């Protein structure tokens, strides 16, 4: 029914939390505070609609800011992998 050419930006949807690609420095400091290598973060595929929309590439680290009913905002990180 819906034509495949009509792409919708997932970021405008109210249920999609804010995603952003970290700069090298930010990524480095996140990994430093957690004391881990990038692959020890949870992964997200580069083909994920939101990652495509924000232009994430394999190797990037993405910050996701979710709404939390208890503490307002909660921050998580994901490592972009190919696929």
């Amino acid at each position, binding site marked *: 029914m819906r034509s495949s050419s009509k792409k919708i930006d997932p970021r405008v949807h109210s249920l999609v939390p804010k995603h952003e690609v970290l700069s090298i420095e930010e990524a480095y400091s996140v990994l430093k505070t957690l*004391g881990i290598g990038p692959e*020890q973060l*949870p992964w997200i595929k580069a083909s994920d609609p939101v990652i495509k929309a924000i232009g994430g590439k394999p190797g990037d680290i993405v910050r996701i800011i979710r709404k939390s009913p*208890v*503490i307002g905002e909660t921050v*998580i990180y994901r490592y972009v992998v190919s696929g």
Partner: protein
Amino acid sequence: MDEKIIKGVKFGVLSPEEIRKMSVTAIITSDVYDEDGTPIEGSVMDPRLGVIEPGQRCPTCGNVMGSCPGHFGHIELVRPVIHIGFVKQIYDLLRATCRRCGRLKLTDDEIDRYVRIYSAIKGRWPSAAKRLIEYVKKMSIKAQECPHCGEKQFKIKLEKPYNFYEERKEGLVRLTPTDIRDRLEKIPDSDVELLGYDPKNSRPEWAILTALPVPPITIRPSIMIESGIRAEDDLTHKLVDIVRINERLKESIDAGAPQLIVEDLWDLLQYHVATYFDNEIPGLPTSKHRSGRPLRTLAQRLKGKEGRFRGNLSGKRVDFSARTVISPDPNISIDEVGVPEDVAKVLTVPERVTKWNIERLREYVINGPEKWPGANYVIKADGKRIDLRYVKDRKEFASTLTPGFVVERHLIDQDVVIFNRQPSLHRISMMAHRVKVLPGRTFRLNLLVCPPYNADFDGDEMNLHIPQTEEAIAEAKQLMIVHRNMLTPRYGGPIIGSAQDYISGAYLLTVKTTLVTEQELQTMLGVSDIPEESLAKVLEEPAILAPKRLYTGKQVVSLFLPSDFNFHGQANISSGARACKDEDCPHDSYIVIKNGKLLEGVFDKKALGNQQPESILHWLIREYSEDYGLWLMDNIFKAFIRYIEMHGLTMTLNDVTISSEASAKIAERVEQARSQVSELIERFNKGELEQIPGRTLEESLENYILDTLDKLRNDSGEIATSSLDPFNNVYVMARTGARGSVLNITQMAAMLGQQSVRGERISRGYYERTLPHFKRGDISAEARGFIYSSFRSGLNPIETFFHAAAGREGLVDTAVRTSQSGYMQRRLINALSDLRIEYDGTVRTLYGEVIQTFYGGDGVNPMLSAHGKTVDVDRIVERIVGSKR
């Protein structure tokens, strides 16, 4: 010997050379014992495979039975056979490599590139390396022609379970294991590596067996049955089969038998070797014992619930545990468990002798294993273990007790033990209790702790485990004891609390009309431990002074509340005509507690019930400590039970018997519904029925009928309940939430209503009808499982049948659901079992991989939260100000 540290374990495929190297003997004969019953050398019971009888010395390693590890032998297979566990890998390898030169069917450039990528990523990105290998394999399988030798490739066909064919021009040609082995041997090591195997530890051709290891006898012991006849292990039987066929195959080949016969025997050998590994291969007949029982071969030993992994490694039988039937005891504390004396005399706690306990421990030693409280063993300072059963003069032995000895004494009162009921679905399925040794043969537990275990007393059994070290005991006591687990981490509310009679008792005591005499009050308080000062206060001030001093029930329960406790809220009975939304409540269904005095409202399920978050009980435990919660459970609930014992509570037929006017009204209503249904059917037949959007006409009719009948039952229930006395016992139990519901009362007093199977009216059974008592195509209410009768009036045979059909579905559903949710639970637990919260608040695996950057996204421990919230501002205001915002 050098001390070595294991850094890792590597798995590979055994090579034939390795099999021969670790073998102590070749197994060559299928006869096992000679006439006098001694094992034959060169048979599967060859003595060099390890000692089996006590006292003997192993001819291979010289050890006696306990210390000989057992030794492998081997069978030289006359013709190679496929290892059934590697069929998939063999299939892939055959397709991915050239049939002539054995190379990957990719150009050298491609291979070089892939090798470079592979070696770059395999250390850090194992999962990406796996994907690369899959890709290389896919590309190589695709190639029709070998780029190295130019050979045209044929399609390989696998006929499950282990037959390979090549689709040549002349037709299907079978590839024998020898052909396959020849091909696999040709694959160079470098290509093997790019196919994902380590050629040093797993050469592809080793997947075709030429030598078969024969496991030591210790893993397949023969057992003596009473008659003195030897029964061999299933593995031994299977190995004998293999040796026998191998022998016959050799003889046939040597005798120059026709190709056909040789091939048949070869196939048979393949079958036996395959079923030796796994006797549940789809497409192969299972190998059976003479009695017809399927053989339990290697894979069967490992697989499933009783297999090596789930049955012996993940879970095993343990010492210092007991299991028996449970029964209730309202008189013991909620964190106690009643233990039968017989159990207490077998289970022991090791207690180290000190100068402070030496006299007590001497008493235990003197009492010995037979008399409780005694002791079963003493471990001397030098580590020697003395069994007190065999000490002749225990009195004298007790005098030799000195500090440093350890006495394994019987279980005594106040010992901390872990109590458990399966299925252990959450952590509060295992809690620590304090022991109370009691006469009898059952474990006793307080009724209030039934909800976390989901226990009842219809024959349930529970397990008891005794922690054996000071650390374990301390941990159990501090973390696992019942009153530290009254609030569940599942939803942050009290999981322990009153049920059934406790609720009825609380209601009957707190209801407006209840006045108790001084004597009754004393009876109730006699079972409770009330602090002197609050006792003195209430006894001064009865609600009624003359003509008799009488206390209200509300005064009684106020004795148990802290003097600064405030609460407002609806009771469970606040519903329907007796609902109240604020303090101005004529039905006594709105609870008001000010400064620890119950001023208004009754205590029922909403106030003190189990699994009721944000209730009075929840706030009491949360705001006045778990120890106060424990005290409350041990005292106020006992008073309720004492009161209900004095008051009495039962149900009679009269409680569900409705007046004749009400019956007449229901009959009238039934007639009305009947005519509505027949009118619907008539309109449907005439085609006048209005169709519901998205449904067929038939479905619409069903919907209309269901609606009509549902209304009928609701109306009948309404008529019935309004004719019943709201203060009759059954109705009280339903309204307070003690037991039963309004629906149950409706079904008892008015009618059962529609019975359903698979969410529809019952429609199957006979051709176009449910039972032969109806005309074909009859879709009236009574022909499709509607029951007009009540349990009070009784069901007719047809109604009984429909009710049984619906009841059966319920049972089947439960059985299916529990097995499915059990499987899901197992998988979740295995996936999550080793995760932990680190000190930085992150949730990580044992390898440091981050699962959550902040526990739960908010760092909240639900057990310590106010029903999931970090702070409940409304409750704080209510608590301090004494009224709701």
